[in-house]
């Protein structure tokens, strides 16, 4: 069995591991447009601020590939797929035949129309090359504008602030990271950012701009405001990178590629995993889980992907957030909401319940045992018997009926 994987990030290498659980020999070829061995994308902000080094970027030890008979083609692009011949055509003209193919091409940074600006006028914040470009441009004292105050904009902000830049964030929504933070949480985080010297502009966006003499950018905002910047980062999100599948017979493209419960795209032997998949949250744990299962199914298993709710951990400038499930709802929207706050410590813990089931949890600056709540959510456990204990500081198994956990702790 010959395996070809297009893409070389977390879904791809988890697929390799999944394949090797069942097939120790079939040759695997990874086609990687980037010239780096797989690294966790979220690491780029840590690299940019010097919290991790180049030597620690690779996700797997260097001998992983040789030990597992995996050939990695770095800096090589797949141009098109010849579906009937089962071949991937590469940008050097060569063709790779496959029996099983994985599309793990991830996402592309979304860039809105920016009138008057060219590609060299801004930097996206998705991959290692973006971070390297920023490292060359991000000098202390420079003024940076970041478009988008979601998770990747916030991580870009942290890196730039720690490199000594003056940062302004521009966000179209009425609050930062609005799919996750409710008004109160966003206010808490925004006031923290402002205390750290970050300027936050809400309900506004950048329409375009121009390069002035001396190299600075003049940016025009929707509100009519103008901003001056030495550096512009665009971080408003990603869209699935489905280019290779556009002409594929029998394949449905929505935002991403539609897969069945086995992660098959609708063509025999062709699977997809990670950010390219329609409906999969563009988050690393979900890409890893899909990749692993797709790999096993490529090697002959027939396992169904169950999926899990989006969850995320995000820290910047010393503030830490964990979110899972539905968290941005406000009182009066039909959910039961439990909240614990300690304003001096900037602690905010919020649980969202529906019919005595936990459906979301948001933790700011007190994260201990966050995973327990994720378990309660994923297992749809009835929390009525211990609802009053849920937000106790040392909430744990002893607050739950032993029938829920005793056997699990002895497995």
């Amino acid at each position, binding site marked *: 069995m010959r395996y070809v994987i297009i893409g070389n990030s977390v879904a791809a290498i988890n697929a390799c591991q999944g394949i090797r659980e069942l097939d120790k020999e079939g040759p695997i070829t990874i086609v990687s447009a980037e010239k780096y061995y797989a690294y966790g*994308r979220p690491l780029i902000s840590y690299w940019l601020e010097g919290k991790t080094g180049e030597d620690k970027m690779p996700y797997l030890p260097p001998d992983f590939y040789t030990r597992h008979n995996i050939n990695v083609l770095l800096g090589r692009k797949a141009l098109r797929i010849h579906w009937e011949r089962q071949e991937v055509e590469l940008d050097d003209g060569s063709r790779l035949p496959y029996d099983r193919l994985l599309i793990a091409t991830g996402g592309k940074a979304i860039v809105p129309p920016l009138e008057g600006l060219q590609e060299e006028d801004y930097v996206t914040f998705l991959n290692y090359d973006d971070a390297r470009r920023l490292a060359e441009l991000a000098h202390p004292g420079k003024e940076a504008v970041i478009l988008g105050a979601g998770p990747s904009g916030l991580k870009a902000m942290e890196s730039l602030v720690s490199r000594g830049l003056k940062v302004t964030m521009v966000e179209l929504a009425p609050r930062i990271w609005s799919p996750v933070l409710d008004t109160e949480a966003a206010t808490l985080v925004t006031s923290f950012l402002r205390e750290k010297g970050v300027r936050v502009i809400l309900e506004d966006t950048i329409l375009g701009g121009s390069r002035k003499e001396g190299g600075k950018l003049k940016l025009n905002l929707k509100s009519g405001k103008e901003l001056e910047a030495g550096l512009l980062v665009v971080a408003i999100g990603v869209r699935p990178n489905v280019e290779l599948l556009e002409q594929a017979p029998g394949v449905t493209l929505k935002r991403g590629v539609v897969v069945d419960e086995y992660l098959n795209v609708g063509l025999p032997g062709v699977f997809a995993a990670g950010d390219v998949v329609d409906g999969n949250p563009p988050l690393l744990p979900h890409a890893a889980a899909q990749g692993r299962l797709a790999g096993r199914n490529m090697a002959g298993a027939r396992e169904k992907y169950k999926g899990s709710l989006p969850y*995320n*951990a995000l820290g910047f400038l010393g503030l830490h957030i964990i979110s899972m499930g539905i968290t941005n709802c406000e009182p009066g929207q039909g959910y039961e909401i439990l909240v614990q706050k300690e304003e001096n410590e900037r602690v905010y813990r919020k649980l969202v319940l529906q019919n005595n089931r936990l459906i979301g949890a948001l933790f700011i600056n007190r994260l201990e045992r966050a995973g327990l709540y994720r378990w309660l959510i994923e297992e749809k456990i009835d929390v009525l018997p211990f609802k009053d204990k849920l937000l106790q500081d040392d909430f744990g198994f002893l607050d739950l009926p032993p029938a829920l956990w005793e056997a699990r702790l002895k497995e």
Partner: protein
Amino acid sequence: MYARREYCINCHLCEVYCVAAHSKSRDVWKAFKREGLRGTHRLRVEERRPESLPVHCRHCDEPQCVQGCISGAMVKDPETGIVYCHEDKCVGCWTCVASCPYGAVRPGYRNGRPVALKCDLCRDLLEPACVAHCPNRALVYEGGTT
């Protein structure tokens, strides 16, 4: 490894010896008083008097902390099955803290860096230190990783 909570006397010595076993000196006094490692235990004893319950990593077959790790620091050793964190590679993003269904990965600090603290079954020792020092044999280790 599992706990017999009816034998647990809530003494927290497992936590103390966990800290010592993961110190340079491997000495309780030095670990706490010289190396500044107080609070860096990897298992935790839950308390609801008169009940107490030590909770460890279960070294899952499909560990969600490994799946969620953004740096590749969290790994499951394919030979021993032990799930552990390469602390020099960990960047302290705490995705593992959100991932673990047992709440058994702790956000911590060591040597001035944020690191995920979790049980590694004292993989350099013959027997986990918590088990070896439990005064009432509430902790049982039968080899293997669960």
